[in-house]
C-alpha cells in the first residue's frame, strides 16, 4: 500500500452526494455510497455523516469527460471509471464517477459500491497498491461484490494513517450460521478428502460423500480445534494430506490430526513475498500438479519435486480459458475441475480446456427449493445441515396438506 500523510486531521467527516446517476434508483446510490464508506469506518476511528447542502469533506458527483475545474478528465464508456483526491481543502477528498459508465447495484455493468469503496480509499489518503488482492489495486480486478472487499494490505494502509478501531467500540464478532440451501451461498474453500468433499464456510464445513447421499454439517473446530475460522483455500495432495491456507500461513492435516510444526509460511512453498494470501487451490490428480489461485493469477506447484513450476504466475484466464477474475474455491471431482465464485460454480473440463456447465455453488447439497429468510428465522441458532433444511420443508408441506385434507373431509360429512 501507499499513502499520503497526514490524511484528515479529524475523525468526523462529512459527505454529500451532489447528483445521482440515472442508472440506479436514488436509494440504491445512497446505500452503495454508505456501504462503501462503512467498510473504511469499520476498521478505523473514522465516522461519516451525510449532509444534503453546503460544503462537505467528501463531495461525491457523477460527471462526464472534462468537468468543471477538475484537473482530471473522463473518457466516455469504459477506460476510466472514477477518480478521487487525497484529503485536503478544495477538491481534497472529492470523488467523481464517470457517468458514461453503466452503474449498477449488483448486476451487469460496474458495481458502484466497489468502485466507490476504492475511490474513498483515495479520499482518505491511500494511493494505489500493487497488491493484486487489494481493494486499492488500480484495475478493480480483484473485486467480487459478494466478498468482504478489504484485504489485509488495505487495512494495514488505512490504519497506518488513522490507527485501528478504538478498543471501547470494538464489537464482538457475530456468529453467523451458513445455510446449505441459501441461494447466495458462497464458499471460503473446498477440498476433496479421500472419498468425500468438504466445503468450508466461516467456522463450519459441510461434508458430502462420493457414494452416499448424506450431507453432514459440522464445526471446523470439532475436527481440528487448532485451525482458524474463515480459511481461504484448501486442497488434498497426492500423499493423503490436506493443506489449509489462511493469510500467509498454511497447515497440513493427515486424517484428523493437524501435523506438528504448523502453521508454516506460504513462502516456504515458493510464493513471492508480495503474495499475501491464497484464494483457492486444487491438485490435479492426473498430473500431480497443484494450481494456486491468487487474484487473477495462478501458480503451479509440482507435488513430486515440491517446487513451483517455472513460467508462473500466469493469468488464470490464459491457463483456464473461460475462468476470468478471482475464484473463491476449487476442487477436482471425476476428472472435472469445479471453480466456485460467489454463488456460481463452473464445471471445467481440463482436457477440452473449456467450461462445460455453470451451476449454483450449492448444487452438491440437493436443495429442493431455495430457503427464504422467513423459513430461516425460527431455526437460526441451530447448527444444522442442508438435509435438515429439506426435511423441515417437507414436514411443513405434509402438515399443511393434512390440515387441508381434514377440512375437506369435515365439510363433506
Amino acid at each position, binding site marked *: 500500500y501507499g499513502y*499520503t500523510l497526514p490524511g484528515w486531521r479529524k475523525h468526523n467527516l462529512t459527505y454529500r452526494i451532489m447528483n445521482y446517476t440515472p442508472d440506479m434508483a436514488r436509494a440504491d446510490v445512497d446505500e452503495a455510497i454508505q456501504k462503501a464508506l462503512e467498510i473504511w469506518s469499520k476498521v478505523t476511528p473514522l465516522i461519516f455523516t451525510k449532509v444534503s447542502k453546503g460544503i462537505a469533506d467528501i463531495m461525491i458527483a457523477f460527471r462526464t469527460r472534462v468537468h468543471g475545474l477538475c484537473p*482530471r478528465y*473522463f473518457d466516455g464508456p*469504459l*477506460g*476510466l*471509471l*472514477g*477518480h*478521487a483526491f*487525497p484529503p485536503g481543502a478544495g477538491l481534497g477528498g472529492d470523488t467523481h464517477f464517470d457517468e458514461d459508465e453503466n452503474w449498477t447495484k449488483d448486476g451487469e455493468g*460496474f458495481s458502484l459500491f466497489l*468502485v466507490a469503496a*476504492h*475511490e474513498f480509499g*483515495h479520499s482518505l489518503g491511500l*494511493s*494505489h497498491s*500493487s497488491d*493484486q488482492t487489494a481493494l486499492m489495486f*488500480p*484495475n*478493480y*480486478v480483484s473485486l467480487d461484490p459478494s466478498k468482504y472487499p478489504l484485504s489485509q494490505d488495505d487495512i494495514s494502509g488505512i490504519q497506518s494513517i488513522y490507527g485501528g478501531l478504538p478498543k471501547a467500540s470494538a464489537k464482538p464478532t457475530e456468529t453467523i450460521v451458513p445455510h446449505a440451501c441459501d441461494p447466495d451461498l458462497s464458499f471460503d474453500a473446498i477440498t476433496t478428502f479421500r472419498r468425500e468433499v468438504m466445503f468450508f464456510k466461516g467456522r463450519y464445513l459441510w461434508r458430502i460423500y462420493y457414494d452416499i447421499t448424506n450431507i453432514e454439517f459440522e464445526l471446523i473446530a470439532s475436527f481440528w480445534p487448532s485451525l482458524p475460522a474463515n480459511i481461504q483455500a484448501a486442497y488434498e495432495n497426492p500423499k493423503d494430506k490436506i493443506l489449509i491456507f489462511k493469510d500467509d500461513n498454511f497447515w497440513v492435516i493427515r486424517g484428523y490430526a493437524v501435523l506438528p510444526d504448523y502453521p508454516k509460511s506460504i513462502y516456504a512453498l515458493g510464493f513471492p513475498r*508480495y503474495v499475501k494470501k491464497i484464494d483457492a487451490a486444487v491438485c490435479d490428480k492426473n498430473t500431480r500438479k497443484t494450481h494456486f489461485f491468487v487474484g487473477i*493469477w495462478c501458480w503451479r506447484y509440482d507435488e513430486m519435486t515440491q517446487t513451483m513450476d517455472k513460467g508462473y*504466475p500466469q*493469468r488464470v484466464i490464459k491457463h483456464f480459458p473461460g475462468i476470468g477474475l478471482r475464484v473463491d474455491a476449487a476442487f477436482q471431482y471425476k476428472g472435472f475441475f469445479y471453480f466456485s465464485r460467489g454463488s456460481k460454480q463452473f464445471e471445467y473440463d481440463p482436457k477440452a480446456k473449456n467450461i462445460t456447465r455453470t451451476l449454483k455453488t450449492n448444487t452438491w447439497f440437493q436443495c429442493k427449493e431455495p430457503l427464504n429468510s422467513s423459513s430461516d428465522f425460527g431455526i437460526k441458532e441451530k447448527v444444522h445441515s442442508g438435509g435438515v433444511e429439506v426435511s423441515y420443508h417437507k414436514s411443513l408441506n405434509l402438515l399443511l396438506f393434512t390440515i387441508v385434507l381434514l377440512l375437506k373431509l369435515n365439510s363433506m360429512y
Partner: protein
Amino acid sequence: FPTDQRMDNEENMQLAQAYLNQFYSLEIEGSHLVQSRNRSLIAGKIREMQAFFGLTVTGKLDSNTLEIMKKPRCGVPDVGQ
C-alpha cells in the same frame, strides 16, 4: 498486411504513451531529434508499470502489458502523486 500491422503498432504505442503519461508521469519531448531518448524514457516507464502490475519486466509493449492498459481502471495515477 505490413501496413495494417504498422498501424496497429502505432495505435498501441499511442495508447501506451497516453497511459504512461497519465498514470506514470511520462513526459516525452516532441522533437524528432530526441526520438531515441524518448524511446528509452518510454521503455523505462513500461518497466515501472510492469513491475507495479506484477508482469514480467521487459520494458517492451507485449500483449500482457497492453491488455492491462486496456482494462477499466481508476483515474488516479499509480505513481508520482
